[in-house]
């Protein structure tokens, strides 16, 4: 990464005035209070990215969402692929003294500290950073005037950022007008006054901090469609609609709630409905009731709610009822850290029920994939008449990304239930075929109507205590999921085809994992990155990939547990009995920094018995990163 200020020019030594310096990307951390609207700065930048010819992208994290309290927003903008939110900030914008105190440590040495000189007094003699004092509050008040007080500070800072990074002002102005256009005319006017004031702040006060993102051609394989900008929960909700889901039920819980809010508002437009239920159990039950009528339905929650749904999910496996279950993971157990990220519900998703319940579990890798994972989940649920769990997480739920608008005309699924008459050979639970339920409303030619049931049953759905039938029906439920496994595409694999290290990720750890691969490879270590989208069942053939690497390092945001392995690592070790599978885990409630992954991988290589044969050179190279 080329940074605005290279580490070699620290201490606020003013650079000579000159043309804007070219950069690839920058990490900006905005620290203030949540009512200052700093998150909307990120929103504007993200949408600008989506509309930008330069293919700028942004990533955001919201570590704290306590209303009215301190809040930060981190934006990483750049050309080309941005894979993680950035380990350390290149620029910190501190609105208050507490913002400065709490976040100055996140600024890398040589970075730029922009602070509101009306509120912040930086430590004297600290020459690690370039200090840029700007009276953001009085600057905004003077620009806007009237009774608005300091409202608009965020837009002032947006103007400042637009000037420093040479962003497209016309597009930003259009976005501001769109955002506030529906409101009082004075709001648009005041916003533009604040923006212009920030943008026109006297150059000499900015210490010649001017940068321009490197222009690149649009990435090969780009669709040519315009980009859309949204968060992961929105992408999932709209993906469900495109996948033909029109019914659902839920109960509020962070960070799932915004999905149900969107669906409650959207489904009626499409002729469907979403029910807010009295509790998590009622929600999964109502969703199963919808599915029983032949209309694949969705429910969802976070970890605690998923636990409550487990008995019903056992029923869904036994009765072979299709269903979509979204779990937006957060820090656990119990109420845990409800606004932080964790990947600690994997075992619960796969095994968290009673009895033998072979499940399908998928995880999206980024915001765009949240849209497409809804399709894959709906396809599998319908095709295999089974519940499918989608494990997303707080990081994906709350961050905004820009991606190519999906090709809706070719994607849209028509959700009509099949109420056609079932022939004389209809059986709800045939032993030799995948179950295809007849929904109520469908006539049955034999006149014998089926019962969907949680009791072990024969092919017609009648209860049975037959040892033979329980064995056969358990196998039926298992084999259809194995058939799914056999049909799955090979997982995404990047890097070297064989070598020292194979990084394995699932869910939102994809981005930092891929960026870590690039860093590890640049250190001269042969390495590859395998990302699992289908987590249960696993695609076939992974054992062949695993044998090509000395160390298989599974990276996940959960605890190493009693036996020293994260949840996916545990499962992979059990499945493949391969001692080369090791873990890098963490439980600080934050997304992985690339450096944390590199350090974790380095430890495993150093401690490996194969160290000698791998060559000392590569280790030292890796350790330097």
């Amino acid at each position, binding site marked *: 990464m080329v940074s605005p200020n290279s580490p070699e020019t620290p201490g606020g030594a003013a650079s000579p005035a000159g043309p804007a310096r070219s950069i690839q990307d920058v990490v900006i951390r905005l620290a203030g209070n949540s009512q200052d609207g700093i998150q909307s700065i990120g929103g504007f930048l993200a*949408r600008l990215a*989506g*509309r930008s010819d330069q293919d700028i992208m942004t990533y955001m994290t919201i570590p704290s969402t306590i209303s009215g309290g301190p809040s930060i927003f981190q934006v990483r903008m750049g050309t080309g692929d941005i894979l993680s939110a950035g380990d350390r900030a290149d620029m910190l914008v501190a609105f208050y003294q507490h913002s400065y105190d709490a976040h100055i440590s996140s600024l890398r040495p040589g970075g730029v500290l922009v602070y509101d000189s009306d509120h912040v007094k930086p430590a004297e003699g600290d020459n690690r950073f370039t200090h840029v004092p700007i009276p953001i509050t009085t600057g905004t008040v003077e620009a806007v005037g009237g009774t608005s007080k300091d409202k608009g500070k965020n837009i002032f800072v947006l103007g400042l950022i637009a000037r420093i990074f040479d962003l497209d002002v016309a597009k930003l102005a259009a976005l501001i007008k769109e955002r506030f256009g529906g409101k009082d005319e004075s709001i648009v006017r005041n916003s533009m006054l604040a923006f212009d004031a920030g943008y026109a702040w006297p150059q000499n006060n900015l210490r010649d901090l001017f940068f321009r993102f490197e222009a690149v051609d649009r990435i090969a394989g780009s669709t040519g469609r*315009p*980009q*859309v*900008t*949204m968060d992961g929960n929105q992408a999932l909700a*709209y993906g469900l*609609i*495109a996948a033909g889901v029109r*019914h659902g*039920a839920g109960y509020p819980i962070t960070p799932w709630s915004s999905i149900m809010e969107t669906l409650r508002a*959207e489904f*009626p*437009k*499409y*002729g*469907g*409905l979403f*029910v807010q*239920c*009295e*509790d998590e*159990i*009622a929600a999964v*039950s*109502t969703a*199963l*009731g*919808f599915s*029983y*009528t032949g*209309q694949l*339905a969705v429910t969802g929650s976070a970890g605690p709610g998923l636990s409550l749904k487990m*008995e*019903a999910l056992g*029923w869904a496996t036994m*009765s072979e009822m299709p269903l979509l279950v979204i779990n937006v993971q957060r820090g656990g157990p119990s109420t845990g850290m409800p606004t932080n990220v964790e990947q600690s519900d994997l075992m619960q998703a796969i095994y968290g029920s009673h009895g033998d319940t072979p499940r399908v579990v998928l995880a999206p890798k980024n915001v765009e994939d949240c849209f497409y994972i809804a399709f894959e989940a709906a396809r599998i649920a319908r095709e295999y008449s089974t519940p499918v769990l989608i494990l997303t997480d707080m990081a994906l739920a709350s961050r905004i990304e820009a991606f190519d*608008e*999906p090709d*809706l*005309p070719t994607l*849209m699924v028509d959700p009509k239930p099949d109420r056609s008459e079932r022939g004389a050979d209809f059986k709800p639970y045939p032993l030799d075929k995948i179950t295809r339920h007849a*929904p*109520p*409303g*469908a*006539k049955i030619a034999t*006149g*014998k*109507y*089926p*019962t*969907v*049931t*949680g*009791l072990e049953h024969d092919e017609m759905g*009648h*209860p049975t205590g037959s040892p033979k039938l329980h064995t056969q029906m358990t196998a039926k439920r298992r084999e259809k999921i194995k058939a799914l496994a056999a049909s799955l595409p090979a997982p995404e694999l990047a890097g070297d085809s064989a070598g020292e290290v194979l990084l394995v990720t699932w869910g939102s750890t994809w981005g930092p994992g891929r960026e870590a691969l690039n860093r590890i490879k640049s250190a001269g270590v042969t390495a590859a990155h395998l990302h699992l989208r289908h987590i249960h069942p696993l695609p076939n053939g992974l054992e062949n990939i695993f044998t090509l690497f000395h160390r298989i390092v599974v990276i996940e945001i959960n605890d190493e547990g009693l036996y020293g392995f994260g949840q996916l690592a545990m499962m992979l070790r059990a499945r493949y009995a391969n001692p080369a599978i090791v873990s890098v885990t963490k439980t600080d409630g934050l997304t992985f920094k690339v450096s944390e992954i590199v350090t974790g991988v380095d430890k495993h290589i150093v401690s490996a018995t194969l160290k000698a044969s791998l060559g000392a050179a590569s280790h030292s190279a890796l350790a330097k990163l």
Partner: protein
Amino acid sequence: MSATALATPPPPAGAPLTKKILTADHPTWCPGCGDFAVLHAFYRVLEKLQYPHEKIVTFAGIGCSSRFPYFVNTHGGHYIHGRALPFAAGISLGGDDLHVFVFGGDGDGFSIGGNHLVHTARKNVRLTYVIMDNSVYGLTKKQTSPTSPIGFKTKTDPTGAIDQPINPMRTLLNTGATFVARSHATQVNHMIEMILRAAKHDGFSVVEILSECVEFYEGAFDSSIPRKGGTWTLVDEKKNDGTPEDAARHDTSDEVAAFKLAQQAWPGAFGVFFENKARKTKNALEAELVVAAKAKTKNASDLALLQATLARMR
């Protein structure tokens, strides 16, 4: 069922529905169980209603009574303990032309599923719920149930139940259910009348039926069985005939009067306690949301709608 379906019952497609056609597996209940009579009454109700066979759904949770769907040859299901109502709400709201009947016991309805009873009722989801109350857990072989009277000896209360039992009728009235009736498994014609009226009610209708468990709580309801020395008292419903004696009769639209009936000393009266014909069903309210949303978007196609939404996110 919808209001229009009530006015003109659809003609049967083939042969009329009879008990013979509607009979499925042989019941697993103990000989003498009150639930047999409830099952018989339900067959008779379906014979009278003559709904299209494929549009009837019989659903249940867990318990002796909840085996019901296996014994009725209609679309149906056997769900988990206490949660049949929210599932059935999904069936009713997902298929507005379906006729949904839910069967369960006092444990299913008033204990593990108590919360669901309250909320399905207050939402007025269009379905009929029949609670077969035997005041004991029978399937698990005699534990205290939420309606077991104080002093009743069970395996979990060997010296007699000590917890205040639920008053089912008061509880049902409190939920906001728009049709609440009470019947008795020894009174088949009365059960038929009550379930029939419940089925024809446009909203959430519930019938509480005292149904004796001869195995674990024999004689529980003798006090309301005349041939065993009990008294059988019917709710004397207002006839609106203008006579002076009509003024003293029970007005089923009067919620306070219904609560007074529910407060009577055991065994109390049987019949329709409460009926609210005015409140809209959730089915209707949700349909109105769809109509309003479609009007606002001028009936745009699903594709056009989603394209427009994504275009706003550029």
